[in-house]
């Protein structure tokens, strides 16, 4: 999970889960309430196995050490699922 700390990029490992449409994370990080974050979940070693989800949004503290990301943009990719589509 990434955020900006004192104008510098910061990245921390988090425990993440998806509850329905809610993306949540728990992090050992400074207070992140109301701050813009990008939650990244990525997987795969080799090109055609690479896949992931990036959730950009505002962190809202749940009060139990967890945060919910109020999403502004969700981006997902799966290189193994590439298809040719004429537009």
């Amino acid at each position: 999970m990434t955020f900006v700390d004192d104008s510098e990029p910061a990245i921390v490992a988090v425990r993440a889960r998806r509850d329905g449409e809610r993306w949540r994370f728990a992090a050992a990080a400074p207070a992140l309430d109301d701050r813009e974050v990008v939650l990244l979940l990525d997987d795969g070693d080799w090109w055609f196995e690479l896949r992931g989800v990036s959730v950009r949004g505002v962190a809202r503290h749940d009060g139990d050490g967890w945060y919910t990301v109020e999403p502004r943009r969700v981006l997902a990719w799966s290189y193994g699922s590439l298809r040719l589509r004429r537009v």
Partner: protein
Amino acid sequence: MGAFAFDASDAWVRDFLDASTVVELATVSPYGRPFVTPLWFVTDDGALYVTTAATSRAARNVATHPAVAMLLHGDRDGRRDRVLLLRGSATVHHAFPSWRVLAKLALKYHLSPRGALSELQHAAQWPLRLLYYADARGGPAHLRIVPTAGEIIPALP
């Protein structure tokens, strides 16, 4: 091991980098917003190299804000309890990296036994990959990332 000044010759650091498939690279946009992307990488002469499109978000961010932060997982050793956090600075180069770096990338990702097997299993999709890369605008580029400090942190809070 806590925070430390980065030394590429340190055997433990070198082993962790060699055992990591992906670097999760955090950058800051020209507007001060966070961004993170997972990238393949190799090390060469104390720096990390990643290839990217000249117009990629990471390249544009680094061009205006060179400071970066990175997470590496040491996953090829089966490590899951700790991650390596690196901080440093990056520069954008609007060209392919050196032949030596390209060879290292090919050996690590395409010609390793598991990498080559995956490539062969997806041979029918190679033309789609070429189209995917041909769609990238701005031409080839690479980032040279020079770590300056590191820290071992728990993989999960």
